């Protein structure tokens, strides 16, 4: 007889028992869900640094986190902390003694221009130039604060210490698929029986000058600066690029049996994870979509369900001309005729593209969609792309009974990760 705590392949089920989220829409699940289902946009003009002369001057910045030093690194850590604290509270777990490992999706840790200038100017009067002067100044001065933030392990170590997670924290990057990969690592650790709980977080605060310029130079960003809230237009004819955004999403995953045993709230089950790497190009996916198709197909297979069992797709939906078209083609290839009956929406139409955090934030929203029985809309799709004939739930949220969500994440560099998140029906 099969166990109610295991999947069809006999693996322990990974339950979601706590959620936390911070985005440009606000802090916490309640505010985010209210705004997301009302079709609100969090995209606004950037005020954090001067945008003189830049082609793109808008982003989904998180301005509700107070910090003494505003750098990408400090925001990245703090947002993750806020999201994780909310998730632990919901799961009913202590805030400083988490009974399992941390899997964290983070952006690059970098020294930004104001810090670089601070180091350079510390050696005032030096005859040295360039990096020689910077390195000498670093040795002579006290820049421990910058050092502590610019290590790649910094965010994970900070969070591991704060929440008392066990073992070596894992920081992962699969670019824009990172958040989904962090969840996948947690699910796998539970399935292998290494732990009964995992804290999975995606966090990203890349809205800083040089990162904005880099994406801008690749012509990847929307330049609809005059109408920020209408700039992220996934699946629409007039989409012209993604909008950079910040945020963090946190999920407490637990072995279902252990979670039920301690009376934890079971919000959903992460039923399947699929990934496939592309070998075609650094920024573009294979023209035949085979890597994306492979990732979607593997996630559905891993969930031990059929494509027809997917009843909502939380799309990657970045609002770039190429992504949205490829995502449609790939979904058609896997879901076939079933796609016509399946709502597909992009949270990014409202919160922008939260990069390393996107997979985790959108997983949080996928669980909320199941819990509330409401599908958040895709906004700004009043002029749909005729080549993407999908039900994108335009403009207004829709009530729906959602059993299985497919959440897609496709990364720059060809790394694709998809999740299938399912409703929980109780122990039968």
């Amino acid at each position: 007889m099969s166990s109610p705590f295991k999947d069809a392949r006999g693996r322990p089920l990974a339950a979601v028992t706590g959620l936390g989220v911070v985005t440009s829409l606000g802090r916490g699940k309640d505010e985010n869900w209210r705004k997301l289902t009302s079709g609100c946009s969090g995209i606004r003009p950037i005020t954090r640094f001067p945008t003189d002369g830049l082609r793109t001057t808008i982003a989904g910045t998180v301005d509700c986190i107070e910090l003494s030093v505003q750098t990408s690194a400090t925001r990245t850590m703090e947002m993750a902390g806020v999201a994780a604290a909310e998730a632990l509270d919901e799961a009913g777990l202590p805030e400083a003694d988490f009974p399992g490992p941390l899997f964290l999706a983070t952006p690059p840790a970098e020294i930004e221009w104001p810090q670089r200038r601070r180091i350079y100017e510390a050696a005032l009067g030096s005859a040295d130039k360039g990096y020689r002067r910077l390195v000498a100044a670093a040795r002579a001065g006290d820049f421990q604060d910058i050092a502590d933030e610019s290590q790649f392990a910094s965010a994970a170590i900070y969070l591991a210490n704060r929440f008392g997670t066990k073992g070596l924290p894992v920081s992962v990057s699969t670019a824009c698929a990172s958040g989904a990969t962090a969840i996948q690592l947690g699910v796998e650790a539970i399935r292998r029986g290494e732990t009964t709980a995992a804290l999975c977080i995606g966090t990203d605060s890349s809205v800083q000058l040089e990162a904005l310029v880099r994406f801008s130079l690749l012509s990847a960003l929307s330049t609809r600066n005059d109408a920020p809230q209408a700039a992220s237009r996934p699946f629409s004819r007039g989409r012209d690029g993604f909008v950079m955004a910040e945020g963090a999403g946190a999920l407490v995953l637990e072995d279902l049996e252990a979670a039920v045993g301690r009376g934890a709230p079971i919000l959903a089950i992460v039923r399947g994870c699929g990934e496939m790497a592309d070998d075609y190009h650094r920024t573009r996916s294979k023209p035949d979509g085979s890597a994306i198709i492979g990732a979607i197909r593997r996630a559905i297979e891993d969930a031990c369900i059929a494509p027809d069992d997917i009843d909502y797709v939380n799309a990657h939906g970045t609002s770039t001309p190429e992504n949205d078209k490829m995502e449609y083609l790939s979904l058609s290839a896997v879901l076939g005729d079933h796609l016509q009956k399946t709502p597909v929406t992009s949270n990014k139409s409202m919160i922008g593209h939260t990069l390393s955090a996107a997979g985790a934030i959108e997983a949080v929203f996928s669980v909320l969609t199941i819990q509330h029985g409401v599908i958040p809309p895709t906004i700004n799709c009043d002029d749909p792309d005729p080549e993407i004939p999908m039900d994108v739930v335009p403009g207004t949220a829709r009530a729906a009974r959602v059993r299985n969500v497919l959440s897609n994440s496709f990364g720059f560099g060809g790394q694709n990760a998809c999740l299938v998140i399912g409703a929980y029906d109780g122990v039968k």
Partner: protein
Amino acid sequence: MKNSREVWITGIGILSCAGEGIVAHAPSNQKNFTQTDTTRFSPYCVHPLCTVDFAKQIVKTSEQKQMGLWQRTGVYAAGLALADAGLTDQPALLERTNLVVAAGNGERDCSFDSKVLGAGTCGAAAPAQLNEALLTGLRPTLYLGELSNLLAGNISIVHHATGSSRTFKGEEISGVSAIENAHRRISSGQSDLFLVGGALNAEREDLLLGYELGRTLWAHPYKSVWSRKADGGGFIPGSVGAFLVLEAREHAQARGRKPYARVCDVATDRCRRQPGEATRTLQNLFDKLGVPEGALAVMSGASGAEPATSEELEFLQGLEDRNYRVAIRAHGAWLGHSVEAHFPAGVCLAALALASGQFFEPSDEKSVEAPFEAGEVPHVLVTGVGHWRGEGLALLARV
């Protein structure tokens, strides 16, 4: 499902100051290790990469141009490992090959940064000038192409290994986690075939700046890692690409491959590095590995940074009181400290020692490193202690 299957090392790809490939890194070639460059970044010493003809692994010049040197180093090492394991041009195997890559930050355009700093255009009073400088001076593809996960991306593009792809970050921790993750996925039966490793280009000033902000570099003439404490310690970075093919025993045998060694287990943790804490953490991890008593060869990843190096040494020397006779070697003294690639590099060297039956010779001036006198090497303990955070141990055995 835990630890039910054996994990074999069936391919090694390594390049460093000692040269490229398995012969250059075998115990028989030890006299050629420890190449240093003491002038280019004086007062810092680095272990420079050997001369490499990258076209041997990355045929298209256009591909090479899209990669920074750390990526070329890693892609090259990955290609060596795949070839060594008989996976090159085997599409049916490559599409099932899972990548687990340890990576740090990409390389910056130091001359551009220097120009901006020198022109004073990054002053707070002149924001428009900085914006203009970045818009006109940053090479569009350079930095995005330098994202951490693009080493793995380039390996997929050049070598067509596409089973799955995960990039771990976090300095030394990332290399430890990469080996641990692959080991767990194989031993639990989740997957059969992995390409695991990392790469570091030590010969760049932006990297030196990153580590010197925490004053973790050795800024004196070369000394072995065990001899730096009196001057405050510090690591000497080394340019290294180190990749391993890890494979389930059954899978390797079915395709007729012989192993270099078996990865028995990997144990990891993190502590807050209060005094003595790293030593205790390593002792606890060691107890989990079930290491047979007697002569024990140790391939230490000690970096030379303090207090981590002294704490690790205290743990290793403490094993003498527990019926172990330890023969310690530190590969950081030979090839340099390669941060993300350091633990994979240690595993590569340990596997080469096990395959040859011979351990490396002692090479430090403080006599920390005793000769290995027990004949053929049955086991090697590989240590990975982060210069700042993270502790890991792996036990390898002769097959």
